[in-house]
Each structure stands twice: as C-alpha cells, then as structure tokens.
C-alpha cells in the first residue's frame, strides 16, 4: 500500500492518486475527484429558490414554491446518482484484462472490463477540449478484421481529467505490466 499522492486536474482542482500493487502482474490506480463544494450547492439552491419566489410574486400561486422545493431535492438526488463521480479506479491484471470503475457520490458503481486479448496498447493522447488542448490516457483496442488497425479508443479517467504528470505515472506502470505480459506470452 502506498501513500496517496496529490495531483491536480485540468481545471486546477485537487486529485489524490493511490497506487496498489497486489502482485507483479496486478496493479490498481485509484483517483479521487474533488468533492461537491458547499459553495456551488448553496449558489444553485439560492438561484432556483429566488427564481421560484419571483414567479410566486408574479402569479401568487403557492404551488410554485412547493414545486421549486421538489425540483431542488430531485435535482440534487439525480445529480448525486447520475452525474457526480467521486472516484475512478483502473485495475490492470496482466493476461486477464483491464477494468475501469467509476463510483458515484450516491454509492452507485459502474464497471467496464476489457479483456487483454482485445487490448492493443495504452497510450497518452492529445485532444482539443473546448478551448484547451489536454492530455488523456486511453486504451487502444484491436481491430478483428485488420491486424494492425485500431477499432476503438477508450478514454480512461474521463471525469477526473488529471494532468500530464499524473498520467505519466499511470502510463509507466501500465506499460510495465503490458511489456511483462508480452514477454511471458512470447516465451511460452
């Protein structure tokens, strides 16, 4: 078990990366995203309620106020369950595959597992994101038809969006495992 190291994401928010090494061919990278800040929550709630109060002053219907409360509650629950990701994990098991898990703030977890037979390589790519150019880590999948082609690019850590220094750490560890696996498969 290692100490969690501090990095920052592309917007300057604080990220914590924790690396776990279970065996020479099995490693896990856990990236924790910044939590929901009280300031943004208060701002959103206040704006919704101010708008509702303005509407109430116009039409004098108290249903508007209750509707605003419901909307705020449901909106918060929906945001926590479907949008806000707390932690993203990448688990590499040499000769089995790569697994990516996202845990939401409400406790929901969504997992994707890609078998090692489909993985061509793990690379750091550049992308144009709004007005910025950012780096992101992605998994290249093999094309069943064309042996040298790439059928799909799967980005990793999509909602955490760490910067290049964090990505380089993860990239180096992944390449170690992939290289080790190729060596063992070539020697057998």
């Amino acid at each position, binding site marked *: 078990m290692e100490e969690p190291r501090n990095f920052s994401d592309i917007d300057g928010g604080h990220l914590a990366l924790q690396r776990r090494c*279970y*065996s*020479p*061919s*099995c490693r*896990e990278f856990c990236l924790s995203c910044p939590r929901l800040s009280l300031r943004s929550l208060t701002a959103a709630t206040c704006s919704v309620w101010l708008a509702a109060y303005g509407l109430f002053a116009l039409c004098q219907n108290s249903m508007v106020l209750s509707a605003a409360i419901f909307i705020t509650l449901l909106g918060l629950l929906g945001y926590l369950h479907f949008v806000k990701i707390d932690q993203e994990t990448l*688990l590499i*098991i*040499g*000769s*089995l595959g790569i*697994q990516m*898990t996202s845990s939401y703030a409400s406790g929901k977890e969504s*997992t*994707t*597992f890609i*078998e090692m*037979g*489909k993985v061509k390589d793990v690379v750091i790519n550049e992308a144009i994101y709004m007005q910025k150019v950012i780096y992101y880590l992605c998994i290249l999948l093999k094309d069943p038809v064309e042996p040298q082609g790439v059928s799909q690019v799967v980005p990793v850590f999509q909602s955490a969006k760490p910067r290049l220094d964090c990505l380089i750490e993860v990239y180096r560890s992944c390449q170690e495992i992939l290289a080790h*696996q190729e060596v*063992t*498969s070539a*020697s*057998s």
Partner: protein
Amino acid sequence: MVLKVFFPSCCSSADSGLLIGRWIPEQNSAIILAVVHFPFIPFQVKQYLSEVQKVSQIETVVLGTWCNNKQEKEESLGKFLDDLSTIFSHEPWLQISKEKGSKFWNCHTLSRQAGTPKEDQIILIYYDQRKTMLSRLHPPETSLDNQPGVITAPDASKLAAVFDTVARNEVLFLTDRYDEGPIKLSHWQSEGVEASIIVELAKQASVPVCMLLTCLLSLVSGLCRSRILKFWPLSFIWSKLSTCEQVGYRLEHLRFVFSNQKAENHTQFMRKNRIGQLAEALIPVADHVARELQDLLQWLMGVPAGLKMNRALDQVLGRFFLYHIHLWISYIHLLSPFIEMILWYVGLSACLGLTVVLSILSDIIALLTFHIYCFYVYGARLYCLKIYGLSSLWRLFRGKKWNVLRQRVDSCSYDLDQLFIGTLLFTILLFLLPTTALYYLVFTLLRLLVVFVQGLIHLLVDLIDSLPFYSIGLRLCRSYRLAAGVKFRVLEQEVGRPLRLLMQINPLSYSSVVQTYRLPTYSCYPKDSWGSLCKKLFFGELIYPWKHKEDKQD
C-alpha cells in the same frame, strides 16, 4: 506463463477429492466444474467423464486434486494425491490445498514435460456457478463458421468460453449427493437438485384448473341469485360488514355483465358505467368544437388580423363552410341517442388491451374532427387549382408554354385575344389569392394539429407494442441473467500465494436491454421528409400522413 484457475465458490468448503473441468491450452486457463470425492474407482470416473463429454460436447477431464485439510495435515493423503497424477495424466496437473482456518490457499502445478520446470504464476478466480450457468453474455458470440458447436478458443474471448463451458455442462450438475451412483460430486446443486413444485404442478394441472374456474364462476353467480341470502340473520350480517357489501356490489356487477336478460331501460344498463359519462361528455365537446369553428369563420369573414379580404369571395367561402358545419352538427345530434350504445359495445373490446383503447381514442378523434378534414380538402383543392392556374397564366404572360410531351417549358406565340383573356384571368386570380391562401392556411393548421395529436397517440401505441416487458422485468429481478460482461474484485492477498480474484456478473444497462430485445412494430411512419412536406404544403397538394399498412413492411 500465467495460469488462470476458475474455481466455483460453492466448492470452497467441499471435502478433498479430484478436480474435474475444462482445460483451454490457448488461453492457459483451467475452468473447474466440480469435485469428485473419495472413494472412487478411476475407471468409473473416466467412463462418467466420457458420458458427460458426449452430451455436452466439451472436453471434460480431470484437472488435478483438491485437498481440504479439516483436521491436522495428513501426510498419507498428500502422498496418495501425488500418486493420482500418474493415473489421470493431464498437463499441467493442479494441486490446490486449503489449510484449516486460513483464507489463503496453496496452489501448485506439476509439469511432466522435459525441460526446466517453470514456476508458473497462478491467478485464482472465484465465480458463482449458478449465476454463470444461467447468465447470457451480450453481445452473443457467433463463431466464424456459423456452427452451433464448440466455440473455437483462439477466436472467442476468454469470458465467453467460461460462460459457455459452465452453461453446456448442465448435465454434470444434475446429480446430487442423494443419488446412488458410483461417483460422488460436489457442485452448486449437490445439496439437492433445484426444482419448483409449483411449476411442475402448474404444468400438470392447467387444463383442469381452467375448467374448474369456469364452473366455479357459474356456481357463484347462481348462488348469488338464489334466495337463501334473503333470510333474516344472514342478510343482517351481510349488510353490516363492509367487505361483504363490496363483494356483493362486485358480484352483482359481474352478474349484470354476464346475464343474458335485456336491461329494463337504458339508464339501468349504464348504471355503474363510466362509458355513460363519456358518452354524455362527447356531444357537448362536439358542439363546442363546432361553435369554435363558427367563430373562426366569422372572424375570417370580417377583417382577420387586419388584412382586407375580397368581400364577395369571402362571403361565398364563409357561408359555404358555415353551412357545412351546420349539417355536421345536425348529424351529430341525430346520432346522439345511439352514441352511448355504440360506445359501450366498442368499449367492450377494451379488454383486449390498452393499445386497443388508445387506437379507439385516435379513431374517435378522427371522426369528431372529420369536418376539419373536409374543410382542409376543400381549401387545399381550391388553393391548388389557383396556384396551377396562376403558374400557367404567368407562363402565358411571358409568352411560354408547358410542353407535356417533353416535360419542359417551350416558347409559344399566342393570339392577341388569347393573351388578352389570359392576362385578365391572371389578374383576377392574383388578386383573389390572399383570400384563398388565408382560408387554406387556417384549415391546414387545424388539420396539422389534429394530425399531430393522432401522431402522438400512434407513437404511444407503438411504444407500448415494442417495449420488451419480460426482458425489463428480468433485468429488474434477476439481473445476472443478462450480462454485459464481468467485473473483478481483488480479494485479500498474501505475499507468496496466488492472486485471488472474485468474478461477478456485470448486468446489462436498461437502454441496451430495450435496444437488444425490442419487438417489431406494425406501425407505418410517414414517408415524406420535412422538405417534401413543405413543398407539398406550398403547392396545395394533399397530405396523407399514414400510408396503408401494406406499403410499409418494417
């Protein structure tokens, strides 16, 4: 090379014995299906395995030994297990052993090949046998030569091979420990084969039960009609208990519906019926629609939106449409005594489902707004004629003509009187255009509104028809049956021991479930694109939003 061992979690507490399962050399993985316990005769084990192989068409072999040391470590057992590897030859020979009170297992491989014995890295993956057997992986793998036989290992993914192996060996899981055979197995069903008594009984008894139900219903309705309940103590109790009252109401209602006596009068016929209320509401609605249309026409005949209409044409068209509305209202009022009856009999078909009710609603809307459809057709025809006339006379104005044979515009020399009359007509049509166009616009908008409402109802019917309720219910209640993939969880590790993982089934998302199992629909969608629709509207051609069913097959 890394060796992967898939071990069923139900066998973790089984007694010592032999491990049987499937070995996939290309992926270097061993899928363990069951444990054969002592005592056994090797020859019988081999015979049993060949029988299983014939049924499941998967090579099931003895993979190694399993040693569960519940008491102190027994040396003799260890030696005995080593000797077994000589009887059942398999490369590599697995030896898995578990100490008492320890979570971590020992896992070794014995290799008889010539050459340096490699220290293989072993990964132990626990899987839930029952769930893996029942689950179905999406998207389904199709083997290259399209045979329903064994999936060839290099092409298939490892997970598909695991699921396939467990699912095909169902015959292995049919023997439990109460069987008197020579082989004693341990697997997920070894405590007793799962079967549901209710399902078996239901299968046997379905036909007699249906007959019994119909007899009972006739008996109950006959009983209720009898006079026994009218005697004093029973009738007093009956009236005091509210459940009895409710039951009485329901039974009476049912009796009414099923009885073959004619109703005394119309109101009694509809007594507890919402159809009556619906019918009573329909006539005022039709009246209201007609009144609104009349107001609209009066507005058009005046000065609509500040535009000045041609007085004479305006009056003609307005009076024509008003008379049409008057006729329509008279027909509706003529029909009003019969509407309740018609609605009642039509509403009986509602027992066929919600989609039938929605379609009936759509048809009722179409019938109620039939005059709007008529107005649209009149307005569109008039406008269409006017546009064609205008375009043809415009060509005459410029000295050209439409050549029907060659499908193009040719120049043509007209006589003077032709030109004179043509120009006159052109001017007349041109100045009457705003009036006709306005009527056309108003009625087209109304017609489009009705079409839109009907379209929404059709969409809803389509949605209900094509939604796969069983698949969604399965995804809700037994989510492991529909698998999008697997997920691994790393269990507690100890240095020097093999890596332990838990394999769980990752269920399919709801959107994928609906997309994969969508039922085919019978609805017909409009063929026109938006561009051609606008073009038709501009030229006054009639729009038919739904073609007949035979035209569109998917």
